[in-house]
């Protein structure tokens, strides 16, 4: 999932990551309607990627409209509600007697939060969001449009953001490793990625020719910024970490730790207050869904029986006809 205020390069980043035009560019609405605040929308897009021969079905959830309104308290609830709904689906699926073999796991494994490149420090909305969402999802902070900052400014900015994150105790996904258990390579790799947090990103979809090669880059009157160049931004490293090296780690943490926490909280909550209407409604909802499934299965069975009966009748007709023909033949002969 990618979350961030509009204009920070979210859409471009998704398209750059997937190397295809996945998310359509925002169509700016009429100038007369520009003062109307739209709420946040949650849009999932699914893309098939091929990483070094490994096929990945990547689902990217975009959240346009976040942080655009004058009062943004509502945005947090929307996103949190979406994440918890996915967990709820899995929970009810696991508790079902007859599980659906084709059930699709829609849980979100990682959240990339785009920080505006102000150069100062984290803003209130950034801190609030990361705090509220980190119990439910792996939060990875990134800096959008990082070509705004000179290298020294970028280093200072990163340092201050990490200080803020520590000060406010925000649990982000920081490539955990255990110095004793893991081997040296993993320790080194994770340590290096951790030092790059938050990742500085630049997104670009157009290709231009630089030194005879075609690269994805942004052209300014004073120079050219390349997306895949490690000295210009951290895009390549992030892509590798997300899709290759730490993909399984993120999924494991989501399933083993975050989902289990949610499950414990939810079940102990409903055990505490059995008579509350809220859990009743949820049970009813789950029961209704089960009933619907059962009814559909029954209908399917009825249709099967009907088809079998018709087949038998047809067979008998044909038999009778055959008999008739045989008797006729016998008469003729």
């Amino acid at each position: 999932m990618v979350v961030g205020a509009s204009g920070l390069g979210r859409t471009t980043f998704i398209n750059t990551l997937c190397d295809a035009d996945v998310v359509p560019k925002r169509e700016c609405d009429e100038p007369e309607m520009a003062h109307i605040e739209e709420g946040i929308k949650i849009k999932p897009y699914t893309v098939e990627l091929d990483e070094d021969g490994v096929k990945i079905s990547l689902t990217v959830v975009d959240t346009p409209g976040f942080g655009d309104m004058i009062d943004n308290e509502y945005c947090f609830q929307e996103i949190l509600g979406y994440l918890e709904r996915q967990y709820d689906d899995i929970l009810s699926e696991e508790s079902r007697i007859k599980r659906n073999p084709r059930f699709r796991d829609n849980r979100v494994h990682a959240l990339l939060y785009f920080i505006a490149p102000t150069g100062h420090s984290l803003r209130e909305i950034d801190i609030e969001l990361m705090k509220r969402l980190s119990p439910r999802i792996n939060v990875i902070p990134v800096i959008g449009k990082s070509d705004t900052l000179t290298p020294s400014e970028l280093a200072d900015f990163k340092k201050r953001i990490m200080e803020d994150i520590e000060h406010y105790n925000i649990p982000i996904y920081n490539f955990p490793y255990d110095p004793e258990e893991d081997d040296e390579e993993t320790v080194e790799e994770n340590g290096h990625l951790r030092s790059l947090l938050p990742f500085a990103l630049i997104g670009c979809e157009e290709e231009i020719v630089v030194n005879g090669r075609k690269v994805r880059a942004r052209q300014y009157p004073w120079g050219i910024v390349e997306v895949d160049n490690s000295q210009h931004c951290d895009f390549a490293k992030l892509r590798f970490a997300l899709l290759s090296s730490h993909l399984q780690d993120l999924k494991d943490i989501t399933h083993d730790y975050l989902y289990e926490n949610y499950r414990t909280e939810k079940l102990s909550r409903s055990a505490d207050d059995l008579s509350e209407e809220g859990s009743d409604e949820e049970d009813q909802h789950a029961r209704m869904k089960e009933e619907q499934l059962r009814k559909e299965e029954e209908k399917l069975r009825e249709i099967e029986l009907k088809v079998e009966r018709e087949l038998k009748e047809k067979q008998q007709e044909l038999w009778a006809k055959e008999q008739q023909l045989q008797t006729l033949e016998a008469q003729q002969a």
Partner: protein
Amino acid sequence: MAPVQVGAGIGIANLPNQRHKIVAKSGANFTLMVCGESGLGKTTFINTLFTTSIKTPKTYKRRYNKTAEKTVEIEIIRAELEEKQFNVKLSVIDTPGFGDYTNNRDSWMPIIDFIDDQHESYMRQEQQPKRQELSDMRVHCCLYFIRPSGHTLKPLDIEVMKRLGTRVNLIPVIAKADTMTPTDLHKFKKRILEVIAAQNIQCYTFPLESDDEASTKRNMNIMAAMPFSIIGSTDDVVTADGRTVKGRQYSWGVAEVENEDHCDFKKLRQLLIRTHMLDLISSTEETHYETYRHAQMETRKIGEAKVKTVTNPKWKEEEEALRKRFTEQVRLEENRFRSWEQQLIAERDRLNKDLEAEHSHIKALEAELEAMQAGLSPKPRK
């Protein structure tokens, strides 16, 4: 009456020179307001514009001590600039905290109130019997910094700009313009102009036609570049071809501040200082102040105080605190008086008792005396 042309020249044409001398001696007074979210380069821009360090950059050590009240503050910085023996008293008004919070509703109220208050205070001073020494803090120009999102204006921007445009000369500015490629920048500027036109936001305009061809062309050039895209920097860096300029050094090149292809900084500086500073000042005095005065005079008499709507929660809290202190003190005083009263009553009772005692003593003595007299008087009869 048709103007009469004076023949050989009696010296009327010398009037502008006299005016020039008077103005040069008295200096000018210029108040500039910068408004926008934090991190857009407002402080850097001011320092770049006047090529001195007028405002110190933000310190980060105290950012954890932020108070729980989420209000927009008004910060005033005064400086005196001198160039070729001409003084300008410059005041820069900054608005830290604007647009920084999750809920930014009514965050523009302190800014609007400040601008209105300056008009109000000038109006009051004008109505005083003695109005020689007027302190004029009316805002002559407001630069609104727009975040370079590349899409369009945010609803918050539109709300604030609408309100600012009717009260002060508003100049929209695109901050950190080195974020966008030239094509993106062009599209963004067009979008902003469309939105400004559609939403009826009044921006600062000036008369384009002027006496000579060069100024007219220059004015049209400047107007066409609205909203101005700027890059701010006070550091000197060396470009690829060896020049030392003010700019920002990236690993892929140097973005120069004074280069017309990179940003519109030069045009904005020309507008603000070189060519149209006087126009800004006079339009504030003539148009905006008069509008305010007109609106106020319709409902108020001369000398009456302004009806204030106190919506600022900080003030309400202070009011509450003051009221509490006041009632506390009143209670203390009352207690003191009561105990004093009781003391007095006790004193009086004691004295009364003493008096009683004396009285009874006297009575006893009188009785004795009478008894003795009675005892004495029968003796002479015997």
